[in-house]
């Protein structure tokens, strides 16, 4: 059952990769790529990095979301709960407003700003008694509101660059390239590996912190580590794709409904599912209209009805 499910998801990933390479606004497909050098360039240098970045981002957000939901024991937790996305937006907006926007600068600024935000939230949420999840959650919410105020202000004063900031915040993969893929590969591989390595221990946290302690888990240290992992994954994703909502919330939930709560199987399933979901939605985003619409809009428009469908099947007791 479990092995079959994983194989199914891997197949889905390959299909998603194929579709990501085969379809695009230029209309060329993989057969053209075999015959024609221009088509080959489009497929290898545009669609390939784009599909791979989308896959990596999908993995990162799904992993981070699953970890956060377990850690916070809250089904509404998502990768952005530590204010990471708002931090990244401020970083990107600052670079754009300062007039030094380039792929490298925006990505770097967004990445550093989001890590910084996560660190700040962590420090704010920390008390003498440790790291109570509720305090951390509230610190994250407060920080997110504050930083989105800052972003709004930056958008307001951005004048002609306004649309660039807005588009970045909405999130998408149209600027994906090999550079971005290189930047995020290491943090995402590290984060995903560490997450999978600790997937069983995440189960212990599900029962409550006192119970986690009672099975011999050093909860404070574990929480700290997992928050670092989650911040790293989310920051890497946000830095290259902007703020793509909903993936980190619904992919883990959808998998939970299908395969259960056990993180040993849930976490890898969510990662594989995120890796298929993101490039597929991206294909829809670039084909649905003449131009291209931000993928975050599609994730919300497709994701929520699908999620509600799963909920209504009635299998789920949250």
């Amino acid at each position: 059952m479990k092995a079959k499910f994983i194989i199914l998801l891997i197949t889905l990933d390959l299909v998603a990769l194929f579709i990501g390479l085969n379809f695009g606004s230029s209309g060329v497909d993989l057969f053209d790529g075999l015959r024609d050098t221009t088509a080959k360039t489009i497929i290898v240098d545009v669609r390939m990095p784009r599909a791979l970045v989308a896959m990596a981002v999908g993995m990162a957000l799904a992993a981070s979301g699953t970890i956060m939901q377990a850690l916070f024991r809250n089904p509404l937790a998502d990768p952005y709960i530590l204010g990471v996305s708002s931090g990244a937006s401020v970083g990107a907006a600052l670079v754009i407003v300062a007039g030094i926007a380039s792929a490298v600068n925006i990505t770097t600024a967004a990445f550093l700003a989001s890590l910084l935000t996560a660190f700040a939230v962590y420090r704010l949420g920390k008390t003498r008694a440790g790291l109570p999840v509720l305090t951390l959650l509230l610190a994250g919410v407060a920080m997110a509101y504050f930083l989105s105020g800052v972003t709004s202000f930056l958008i307001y004063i951005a004048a002609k660059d306004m649309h660039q900031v807005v588009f970045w915040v909405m999130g998408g993969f149209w600027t994906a390239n090999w550079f971005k893929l290189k930047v995020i590969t290491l943090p995402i591989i590290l984060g995903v590996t560490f997450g999978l390595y600790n997937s069983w221990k995440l189960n212990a946290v599900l029962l409550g912190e006192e119970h986690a302690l009672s099975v011999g888990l050093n909860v404070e240290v574990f929480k700290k580590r997992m928050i670092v992992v989650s911040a790293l994954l989310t920051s890497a994703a946000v830095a290259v794709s902007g703020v793509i909502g909903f993936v980190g919330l619904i992919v883990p939930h959808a998998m939970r409904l299908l395969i259960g709560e056990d993180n040993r199987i849930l976490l890898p399933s969510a990662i594989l599912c995120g890796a298929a979901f993101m490039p597929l939605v991206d294909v829809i985003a670039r084909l649905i209209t003449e131009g291209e619409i931000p993928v975050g809009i599609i994730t919300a428009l497709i994701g929520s009805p699908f999620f509600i469908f799963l909920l209504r099947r009635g299998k789920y007791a949250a």
Partner: protein
Amino acid sequence: MQLEVKNITLSINSNEILSDITLSVNDGDMVALLGPNGSGKTTLLRTIYGILRTEKGAVYLDEMRLQEMKIEEIARYIGYLPQERAETNLKVLDVVLLGRTTYNRKPSESDVKIALQSIRDVGLTGFENRLFSQLSGGEKQKVLIARIFSQKSDILLLDEPTAHLDISSQIEIMEILREKTREGSSSLIAIHDINLASTFCDKILMVKDGRIAFAGGLDIITEKNIREVFQADVSVRKQSGRPFVVPISRKKPHNNRNKKIHVICGGGSGEEIIRLMSDRGYSLSAGVLNALDSDIDAILGVGDVVTEAPFSPISRDSYIKNLEMIDRSDAVILTNLCVGAGNLLNLQAALKATEKKKLIVIDSTPFKERNFVGDKAEEIYRKLLSRAFVVKSEEDVPKFLSKLVQM
């Protein structure tokens, strides 16, 4: 493995929560930690387990000093069941498997085997693939106990393992723990149900305000100690050699205090009426009862009693004492008792009470089924019935009584 707690003191925000606590738990011990809410039981368990760090004193596992061990290591020696409610959609087997996280990064075949055995130990075989969230309260608690068992630790610390459970689950869980203890583990169980503790445990620690107030065997469960530790009035009786505690309600109708009622009973026929009258706050007496009569237990603690030596017929002395009590009473109740040669004088005494028109007879079953003396008793009883207030059952007594005692 021996658990030894030596002089630990712990303060939180400069409030001393635990003061100089010393205790030890040996192999095969099942120790109850009794104390009212807020007395420091949970804090003590958390401190022993190493979650809270003490400022003074130490906890030892055999020769090992627990403060120097990591929590991963402690969990292999001590199975700690917190009181915190657990809620998860994990399957039962996955919850029990968590007890193995301290040994491996991922559960192995043998971990699964151990988990399945633990599930069997708590009697939940067949529940492995059920969702934890869909179990009853008692089943959930058993799953959590199975989780501790799968840690394979010698010492169990349990914080209110029976709280909020129905009585059959309470008993089952205590039996499971006793079984484990008999296999050589030892357990320290924080509990506030004194009777449950007395039924299953052999050693008692009573905690009050962060100190060990009393420590010892079951014999420390006394009315005096419980009043001191719990600030509660109870009466302590014996049941198969173990003390059991019956709460005494302090809020009794005070206007009945000066009304005296004497109960003529025997062989358990008086238990219910004595309880009923005692609840209503009347001053009670009873007699004549043989020393081993079960009605003695009912009257002890709530009223005076005239006793006779075991298995002896009522003596002249006792009879007269009984008459004196009847004389001083505002009402006399004759229960649905059996009459033999030994207690025929009780019937005579009841007859005396009718002279002052203050006798109530509880006549539930035909007298001839209760009469082992013959015509003589039959005649007295007939007289009684004609001169007394006769009721069919105990519940009917109060309404007659209210008329009687007002006269």
